[in-house]
């Protein structure tokens, strides 16, 4: 029997579960009406993540449209992720964390070497140092996508705020062991992710944390859904989505 993580879910609804170690990368397809529960297993995890419409991967998560449609600079329960085509890729149906970063971007090879030193596969085998950018390029490459498609990403479980002068601040300890977010897919989506550390994480050690993924049949957003009705912009984005998938 595979290990079970999201034990609170109705077992009849769970499609699959798996653990993703820290520093790893993963991709998969989530169908409309399926929710992906992402759980921070130890606390302090970061998940650099992107979404693409599985049927037309030119349609993808759009940071700016997500932010300006909902007048927000971060994600939490009740918010949704917009595609660049005015539709909802997925909704944050539940969230115990309260803040997921949308503006910090992703770590890269140069940064990881500067911050944590070099650790090559040759000497370290699968404990070698990975970085978010190359990890996402790895996953994208499996679908014929690449650097051109690596647009501004989400960082689940990480919190970055902006002060009145525009300065960025990373908040350590935003997410604890067991914190989780439910991403409910409103269209079939390719999900790519990396569990490398956030690029602004001041932790001096290479110490990426593990997460678990659990996919379960939730159904898509109903008429009275709080994400749909959070603002008129979201209502219109759901109308656009349902013209294609309703």
């Amino acid at each position: 029997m595979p290990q079970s993580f999201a034990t609170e879910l109705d077992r009849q609804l769970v499609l699959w579960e798996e653990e993703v170690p820290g520093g790893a990368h993963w991709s998969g397809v989530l169908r409309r009406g399926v929710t992906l529960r992402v759980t921070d297993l130890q606390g302090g995890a970061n998940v650099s993540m992107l979404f693409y419409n599985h049927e037309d991967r030119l349609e993808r998560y759009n940071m700016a449209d997500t932010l300006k449609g909902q007048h927000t600079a971060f994600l939490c329960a009740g918010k949704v992720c917009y595609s660049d085509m005015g539709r909802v890729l997925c909704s944050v149906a539940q969230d115990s964390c309260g803040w997921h970063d949308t503006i910090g971007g992703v770590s890269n090879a140069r940064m990881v070497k500067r911050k944590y030193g070099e650790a090559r596969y040759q000497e370290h085998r699968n404990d070698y140092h990975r970085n978010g950018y190359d990890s996402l390029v790895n996953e994208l490459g499996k679908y014929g996508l690449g650097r051109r498609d690596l647009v501004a990403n989400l960082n689940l479980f990480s919190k970055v705020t902006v002060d009145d002068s525009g300065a960025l601040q990373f908040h350590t300890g935003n997410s604890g062991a067991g914190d989780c977010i439910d991403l409910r897919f409103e269209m079939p989506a390719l999900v790519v992710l990396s569990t490398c550390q956030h690029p602004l994480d001041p932790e001096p050690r290479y110490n990426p944390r593990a997460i678990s993924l659990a996919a379960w049949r939730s159904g898509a957003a109903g008429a009275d859904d709080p994400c749909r009705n959070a603002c008129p912009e979201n209502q219109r984005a759901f109308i656009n989505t349902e013209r294609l998938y309703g």
Partner: protein
Amino acid sequence: MSSGLVESALDSASAAFRHVVPAGEPFMKEISKGQVLRILDLEGNQAVDTLFYSAADPEERYDANTTIREQGNIYLTAGTVLLSNAGNPMLTIVADTCGRHDTLGGACSAESNTVRYALEKRHMHSCRDSFLLALAEWDNGMSKRDLSSNINFFMNVPVTPEGKLTFEDGISEAGRYVEMRAEMDVLVLISNCPQLNNPCNAYNPTPVEVLVWDPQ
């Protein structure tokens, strides 16, 4: 980034290239390493949606997240180094008489207009339409895939400490400009924004001028 204003020593009369971009039109041009590009807000409060690509390898392009993260601040102004997705300097902002510029607000599109304003707004002109036409005309294989997070010169999109993001009245005026020196050969892609539904253009899109100087 402080909003200390920095004026340019360059004289418009000595520019090697001058071109007025009317509101609602795109502009695309190669800028060589060492050349200086100025975008001049002719009538004030205009938003100029701008993307940069390495001329040698357009897969290397301006990266908004990397740029703001490496300088530790979301606003672009004099001193900002515009970084690529490979972490390389593409251009450096060397003069700025506006004070700050946005790179989180993105570009308008027919589809985002339906979400932000009303389903019936689909048929209004948008930046993405300008970008797509400019790329089609440039004809080097670039497409919607290459439209990543852009800069909005002269646009004011503050983020509050609580994480709210809003579009506010512009802080630019007629005659204000931003100037940058190319650190590599770049393609610049501009949409002079036609948006009529929010205050980014003071509801009145107006022309801007693009000037280029050869290395001094």
